[in-house]
């Protein structure tokens, strides 16, 4: 995997796109690190559903917070271990329990945010998500 982030963000932009320096290189391949895992333990709280895409049922992990229906939908795009890998289920469960105010710092600590122009450093992720939240009122994308 080749990841280059030459352009450190110097301020919080108003829009998503300018957040990434234009000379960044998006990752192009997978390395051994991508295939390495440390097994977590726990009991997932979500459920398996199927989303029909052109008549094909696509397996989907659904984690919902207790109480009122969520007003925001978060999409989770997993690593090579998949959305149903226990580690990833637990991460999704945790995101589902968090409100907007708590979600950003959680992501900033744990998730690498990638864009079409590069990979944000962890310290930038909070600002990125804050920007994304403001411009996307009900949908958030998370990749790990």
């Amino acid at each position, binding site marked *: 995997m080749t990841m280059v982030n030459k352009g450190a963000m110097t301020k919080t932009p108003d*829009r998503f796109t300018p957040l990434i320096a234009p000379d960044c290189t998006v*990752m192009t391949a997978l390395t051994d690190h991508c295939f390495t895992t440390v097994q977590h333990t726990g009991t997932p709280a979500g459920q398996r559903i199927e989303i029909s895409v052109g008549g094909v049922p*696509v397996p989907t992990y659904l984690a919902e917070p207790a109480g009122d229906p969520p007003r925001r939908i978060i999409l989770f795009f997993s690593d090579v271990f998949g959305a*149903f890998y226990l580690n990833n289920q637990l991460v999704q469960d945790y995101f589902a329990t968090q409100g907007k105010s708590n979600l950003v710092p959680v992501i900033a600590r744990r998730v690498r945010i990638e864009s079409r122009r590069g990979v944000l450093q962890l310290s930038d992720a909070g600002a990125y998500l804050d920007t994304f939240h403001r*411009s*996307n009122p009900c949908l958030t994308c998370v990749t790990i």
Partner: protein
Amino acid sequence: MLGIDYFFGDTYEKHLDEPGFDRPTWREKSVRQAQEYTLGWVEAIKQRYGQCLMHAHRVYPGLYVFDTQ
């Protein structure tokens, strides 16, 4: 929280103990699957849970790129 299984069950976890597992071939197959279904999945989610300002530019496992419209 919605997580798509673009591997359709054939994740790398299933191959952890396979000596000499052909990662590139597996990756290529997984990329094809993801390209075929992920954007449709996002559209289906938007239909089910409401329209949102979101646009996907490029897709392959390990990197999903979204931008606002």
